């Protein structure tokens, strides 16, 4: 079995199992902690509407805060968006998804994918530097914060190298790219990447709780 066979075979299968089982375990274990019924009389009964509104509203900073968090906010959303474009619209990725799902979709030119991946990488590095240098972020950061950034950066780097055929044989680069993505899958349920699954529930709850008190959150 070659390294690429291993990466595309058992490593992929096991990492996906860990990802799915781990996320389900942590998600349900967190949610199932439950909560007491709120016996206070709500100011208005629009909790679902308020919760859904907050899911969308929190994507935009408020007037009071916008001027203070402009870089982090813009950089945060941009790198996420760039990553999704690179993952979902790269031709080799779509071929892979097609082999698994049975259907594909149109891809973007390789040059655009390389640029978006480079943007995501540059912003992640900038945010990592900020985390290392900004007094607040440096103080509150733990190993998870650094591991999670690095584990997202590595697939981007290996993907760019594989796509541009730089540094080694294509098969080797592809195998390393697969393995780096699988490392991300394995880490995902254990670290703060879990925010992906829990951000919307958290926003919904904030919106619903403030909403029942008559406050837009």
């Amino acid at each position, binding site marked *: 079995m070659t390294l690429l066979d291993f990466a595309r075979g058992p490593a992929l299968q096991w990492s996906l199992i860990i990802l799915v089982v781990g996320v389900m*375990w*942590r998600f*349900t*274990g*967190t*949610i*199932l*902690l*439950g*909560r*007491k019924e*709120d*016996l*206070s*009389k709500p*100011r208005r009964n629009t909790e679902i509407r308020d919760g859904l509104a*907050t*899911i969308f509203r*929190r*994507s935009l*900073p*408020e*007037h*009071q*805060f916008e001027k*203070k*968090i402009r870089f*982090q*906010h813009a950089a*945060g959303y941009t790198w996420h968006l760039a990553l999704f474009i690179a993952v979902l619209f790269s031709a080799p990725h779509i071929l892979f998804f097609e082999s698994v799902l049975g259907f594909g979709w149109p891809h973007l030119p390789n040059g655009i994918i390389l640029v978006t991946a480079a943007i995501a990488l540059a912003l992640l590095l900038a945010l990592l530097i900020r985390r290392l240098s*900004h*007094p*607040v*972020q440096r*103080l*509150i*950061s*733990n*190993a998870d*914060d650094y591991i999670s950034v690095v584990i997202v950066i590595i697939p981007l780097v290996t993907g760019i190298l594989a796509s541009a055929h730089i540094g080694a044989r294509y098969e080797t680069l592809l195998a390393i790219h697969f393995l780096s993505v699988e490392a991300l899958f394995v880490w995902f349920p*254990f670290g*703060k990447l*879990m*925010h992906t699954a*829990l*951000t*919307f*529930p*958290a*926003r919904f*709850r*904030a*919106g619903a*709780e*403030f909403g029942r*008190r*008559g*406050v*837009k*959150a």
Partner: protein
Amino acid sequence: MNIDNAAFRDFRESLEHLGSDTPSEILSGEEQVRRAKQTFMDKLDGPMAVDLTTCVHCGMCAEACHYYEATQDEKYAPVRKFEPLRRFYRRELSPMRWLFRPFIRDVTAQDLEAWQELVYDACTGCGRCDMMCPMGVRLSPLINVMRQGLASAGLVPAELRALQIEQRDNDTVFGVGAGKLREVIDRLKQQGIEVPLDKSRAEVLILTTAVEVLLFSAALSATAKIMNRLDADWTISSQGFEAANLGLLSGDEATQRQAAARIVEQAKTCGAKTVILPESGHAYQAMRWEGANELGEALPFEVLAISEFIARELDAGRLPLSTATNGSSVTYHDPCRLGRHSGVIEQPRQVLKALGMEFREADSNGRENYCCGGGCAEYVIKRSAPLRQKAFEIKKREFDETGADVVVTSCANCRINLMIGAENGGWQTPIESLVERVAASLTE
């Protein structure tokens, strides 16, 4: 300003000695940790677990905190203030605890002592960070659990603890009991203001606070004038008039429950359909939102803040007011627990506009308003005075930018803290009470 300056000086003087003779609770470090962790275990629920898991340590919450803004000291980042709770959750409650435990340091007595300053001196529970978090994390409930954990570990600062013990053991605050209330009511009666005390039956139960009795009796007088002008069937109970809840402020839940139960009992006794809270943000939160949950049953009456009651009466056309204000301008300071935490935001503005004053909004207002800097009874903690003064400078700057002639608020604690800040900084703009302004504008 309707305040007796000598009384205010005496009050400030009394704060200097508050807690000096309060016996501290001597617990071993092991017992402190055991108690705090038990409280953490009891209080953490699903939504808090979601929040603790969702936080990505972006640190943006710091930009919402008035203490961070005032000092730029990273330790005041709100997310930092519940770090021991986060560690506890990950080690002992998270579904991944079996894996996390060896890698995460346990909570120690030293941690609890170190966090006392962050939780009590440098957080007023204002909830501004709740509005900032891009992930939707509600930080203030998590910091409140920290507060409750420290309280159970006997780590409430001495001044706050003195007040909490006083309310728990004597049902008084700042020494104000039924006797002092009667003295004020008798004085008001001599001025021709009738305050129906201890009526056996009444539609409306009015609450007041020790601070109103001691310092702001004009606010109590104003409330009485308004209720009498409305010809309302109302009373004050000498056995349950205190709206302040030192249990909520200190994190001692037993005291919080006891204080809430006392009010509910009096309301039930007189058959009140409505309980009106005085100008106090935390008192409103304690009764309106937490009362039912503390007592385990829905409240058998409606709970209103005096400002929302006045707005409702104005809206119904039952409260005729003079709009002769000589063209003066006003800005409003939103008490955090009345505004952001409770939705009483438009009502006080509606009232001020009805008074005919030119209303000028500060840059931060309503749900994004900055705390006065001394909420959650922090103004009683002596060692945090320099920090509070720095936070007050933010308010002062924003008030000055409006150019308003008067600052009005609807919380006695905010008023005290703003007055202390103004006095220390030589700031002259009057800081007034909403209810007093309304009573002064009542027409025949």
